């Protein structure tokens, strides 16, 4: 395919080029990888609505400018991060804190790591040319996605987590991404988690920031789920209302493994969560779910590409979105079943609840099936709360507002129930209740 002729760059594109030219000398390691990734970005430009995968989330339009790269956090920024992630205290996870994109060991709980667990800074691994990292980075699920390319070009820091074969972590790992909210800034974090054969790990990723911060976040995580491993990953996007948040997850799942993914989104101005999941080994069971609650003019996009290349994998995708105000929820889910992936069992559903006449839901489920012995299906709905149901609740004495809240909780509860960790389930149920209280 010929490259588009793009003589005019937007202000953001120009700013990104300038930023790369001036920053590449001090970004940690991986010079060749960065250069080729940046070239990919320069060729394509920021994705816009005429690029099919970005049809509903025009990143070029959303990014009027590119914020300067965030500076390393100073003492004041770190102090503000002290209570970050506190909402998840009941989960008793091991806190790993990143402030403005930089891993901060002194705020992290790195004492008494369980046998077989290592946690280190991505920046240090890249600077030292750590082969275990450089050999994997960008190769877990290869993609030419432009947001991922930008992340690769600019990645500043992140964490590298390794869980050895057969190790079973008793505590969840809780990655706390905190935006300290000084000057407007862009933050590029990249993390890698390698979970060995038969190991067990739960990874919680929460993104938060001080209210009103003007940030552009581009975060990426690559996860290798070994054969027979069991990995849960839960990502909570809860940043301030001024934030543009683009996130990419690349997960390669081995044979006879279990992989559970959950995306919980309530905040930020614009969110794009993209998931690239590759089932590489047979007999794996995966649940990929999410709940999105939006109001005012928020925009959130969940884009999945689930690639089945092995025999007999089961995947369940359940996404629920609650859309109030003038918000817009986007779901794009593509399930690919390769010729070898016979006996694949894939079911995907996306349901949107529209709480206002001005909210919008866009849903695009796709199945690409190249094997002949599979069971795949998808369903997608969008609608308002059922009047008959509401009347039943009201006729029992429950006021209209409370009846609506009960229905909304039940609606997203169906997705949240898919989370195996009871404590985390309760935290998210509480967050739904808190969100309901903020409805205007």
């Amino acid at each position: 395919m010929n490259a588009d002729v793009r003589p005019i760059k937007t202000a953001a594109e120009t700013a990104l080029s300038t930023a790369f030219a001036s920053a590449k000398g001090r970004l940690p390691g991986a010079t060749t990888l960065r250069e080729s990734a940046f070239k990919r970005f320069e060729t394509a430009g920021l994705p816009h609505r005429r690029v099919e995968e970005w049809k509903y989330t025009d990143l070029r339009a959303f990014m009027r400018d590119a914020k300067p790269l965030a500076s390393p956090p100073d003492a004041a920024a770190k102090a503000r991060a002290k209570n970050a992630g506190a909402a998840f205290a009941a989960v008793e996870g091991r806190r790993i804190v990143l402030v403005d994109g930089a891993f901060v060991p002194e705020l992290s709980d790195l004492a008494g790591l369980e046998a077989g667990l290592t946690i280190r800074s991505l920046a240090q691994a890249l600077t030292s040319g750590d082969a275990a990292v450089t050999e994997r980075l960008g190769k877990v699920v290869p993609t030419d996605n432009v947001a991922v390319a930008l992340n690769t070009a600019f990645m500043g820091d992140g964490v590298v987590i390794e869980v050895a074969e057969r190790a079973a972590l008793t505590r969840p790992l809780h990655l706390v991404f905190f935006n300290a909210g000084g000057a407007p800034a862009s933050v590029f974090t990249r993390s890698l988690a390698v979970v060995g054969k038969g190991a067990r790990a739960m990874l919680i990723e929460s993104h938060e920031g001080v209210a009103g911060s003007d940030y552009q976040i581009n975060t990426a995580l690559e996860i290798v789920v070994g054969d027979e491993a069991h990995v849960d990953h839960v990502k909570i996007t809860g940043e301030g209302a001024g934030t543009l948040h683009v996130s990419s997850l690349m997960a390669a799942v081995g044979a006879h493994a279990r992989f559970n993914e959950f995306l919980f989104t309530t905040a930020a101005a614009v969110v794009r969560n993209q998931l690239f999941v590759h089932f590489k080994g047979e007999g794996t069971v995966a649940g990929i779910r999410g709940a999105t609650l939006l109001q005012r003019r928020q925009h959130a996009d969940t884009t999945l590409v689930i690639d089945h290349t092995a025999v007999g994998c089961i995947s369940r995708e359940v996404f629920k979105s609650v859309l109030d105000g003038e918000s817009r929820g986007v779901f794009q889910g593509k399930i690919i079943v390769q010729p070898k992936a016979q006996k694949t069992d894939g079911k995907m559903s996306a349901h949107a609840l529209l709480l206002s006449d001005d909210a919008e839901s866009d849903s695009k489920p796709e199945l690409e099936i190249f094997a002949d012995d599979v069971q795949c299906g998808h369903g997608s709905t969008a609608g308002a709360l059922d009047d008959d149901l509401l009347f039943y609740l009201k006729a029992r004495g429950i006021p209209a507002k409370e009846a609506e809240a009960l229905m909304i909780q039940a609606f997203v509860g169906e997705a949240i129930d898919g989370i195996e960790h009871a404590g985390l389930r309760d935290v998210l149920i509480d967050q739904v209740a808190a969100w309901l209280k903020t409805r205007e």
Partner: protein
Amino acid sequence: MALLEIKNLHVKVDGKQILNGLNLTVEAGQVAAIMGPNGSGKSTLAHVLAGKDDYEVTDGQVLFAGESLIGMPPDERAAKGLFLAFQYPIEIPGVATMTFLRTALNAQRKKRGQEELSAPDFNRRAFDAAGKLGIDRDMLRRGVNVGFSGGEKKRNEVLQMALLEPKLAVLDETDSGLDIDALKVVSEGVNRLRSPERSFVVITHYQRLLDYIVPDVVHVLSRGRIVRTGGKELALELEDKGYAQYTEEMAS
């Protein structure tokens, strides 16, 4: 004073006149049966009393304990002691029956200025009331009416009535879809709740239900009006002769 007084009630649904000057008085502690052919306006009356939208009151009055119900939101009517047992109870996936019952009871108590019940107090009441109706605890943990049989749904309606302790319960075709055993359980549940302080409006097409819930008075509804009122023997007469005389009377 009468608990419920309906005077000259006219109601339209989708632009169609369903109730045409209905007059009805229910005394405190009275069990009033309303019988009538299909399409006579029985369910419309039930829904208008409970306060469903889409039912347009074009004329008349509905007084409950002396207060007008017209325009009052359904949750306020419930808090004042009005209860509708639905003909087709709704399934609410994701809302556990216990949560639903407690939310409803506490919302009503709050509105009446009473203290909310603590979870243990509420649980004791709910398990006790459920036990009498043969509803096991597992059913209470499931989503409201989800996967319940027709009989279980109707028993769940009676359970709600028992916990909410209304002043007036309107039973909309509670017998529909019930076999004889379920009908007995449901009727016994209703009879246990009969008291001088509680009135019932029992809406039914068939006399059978009235063998179990014996009314003090029977009204015949036809074409949106009460056309005859009598004692419980009127139900037997209707069973014997059918509704034809009333529909013909109206037509002539």
